[in-house]
């Protein structure tokens, strides 16, 4: 390779490499601005804002969903396997809202540490399987043979 081309190649690769690495490091350093939601651990540790609305996300804990019989009010607990936060919401939940599945909710934290959601979105995980497989896994989970399959990744 002739010297001029070699120099140009090195220069281009260096420029692209340094630019790419620095932008990515900048974004990773500003994780809080890029993250979509605060995890229950963030909220318990007091990292979430108290004075304004924010998004919180986690997996809905099994047997934690309580529905009011007269209104559309619902209370449930979300977890990231380290901490838990209780959420309240009044309205229609998305179809995919389910125990053991992820949610991302927008709302505010009240003085009792309860998250009052104004919007609840279902967060789908990366697992795909037919109903029979899901039933078998659910059965195994109930017997306590395997850890919760749906909690395996993502949070």
């Amino acid at each position: 390779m002739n010297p001029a081309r070699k120099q140009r190649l090195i220069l281009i690769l260096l420029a692209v490499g340094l630019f790419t690495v620095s932008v990515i490091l900048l974004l990773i350093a500003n994780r809080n601005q890029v993250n979509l939601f605060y995890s229950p651990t963030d909220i318990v540790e007091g990292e979430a804002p108290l004075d304004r609305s924010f998004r919180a996300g986690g997996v809905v804990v099994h047997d934690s969903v309580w529905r009011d019989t007269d209104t559309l009010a619902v209370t449930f607990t979300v977890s990231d396997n380290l901490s838990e936060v209780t959420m309240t919401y009044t309205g229609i939940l998305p179809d995919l809202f389910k125990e053991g599945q992820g949610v991302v909710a927008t709302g505010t934290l009240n003085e009792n540490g309860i998250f009052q959601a104004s919007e609840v979105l279902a967060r789908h995980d990366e697992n795909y399987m037919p109903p029979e497989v899901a039933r078998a896994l659910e059965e195994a989970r109930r017997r306590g043979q395997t850890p919760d399959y749906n909690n395996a990744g993502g949070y």
Partner: protein
Amino acid sequence: MALSLTPVWRWFHRWTSPPNFYRISRPWAHGLMAVGGTALFVAWIWGLVFAPEDYLQGNSYRIIFVHVPSASASLALYLTMAITAVISLVWKIKLADMVIRQCIPVGLTLTALALISGAIWGRPTWGVYWIWDARLTSMLLQLFLFIGMWAIHTAIDQQKLADRATAILVLVGFVNLPIIKWSVDWWNTMHQPATIRITGETTMVWEMLAPLLLSMAATYCVVAALVLYRTRWEILYRERKTRWVQDELGIRGKA
């Protein structure tokens, strides 16, 4: 100069000469289109009709057979463009600029397809068409990058300058590629993490995974064929004043 005349280098130069590439790319384009098109048809029938329903999403998950192949192919295409842009800037090979120019509309279409199919899936799954998380936002940025490349190439009249500006934009935008790929791991997002993993467990049953992998491989073939076809047109257009193109097309100039 002495180094650049080595046999490998001479072979490379001859292979990338527009007339030669025009001739050898023809069977490749047709072959890839035939294989990819057939495989895509089979994969879609398989995925839409024969693959089982998902336990949670029911049938709506089937949009994955369009969404994942188009998103994945758009990233692969961008990577190809970035490598080609380095070749163009360092070695000044005419063919490289033609390939980049014709990758733009294909990449733009794939990115738009991924965004639109994702939005259609997002509404019944998440509850919203769109949310500004890291994955969706970086993918939208890729769409804007493709539009920007197209605009910059069209806006500059002088061919060489237009090619160089486009190649530089491709390389500046390269930073977005790892961000799209690993956004779901580096930050928390609405978009789920990868289902198909090279390292680690793939979290999809084989009956769904097989048509998905086939649809991905098929899309890659079709995309490669489209880029080849489009590059061939670009060669004819840019070299339209040369003797070989006029011979090729059976039109003789007056000279």
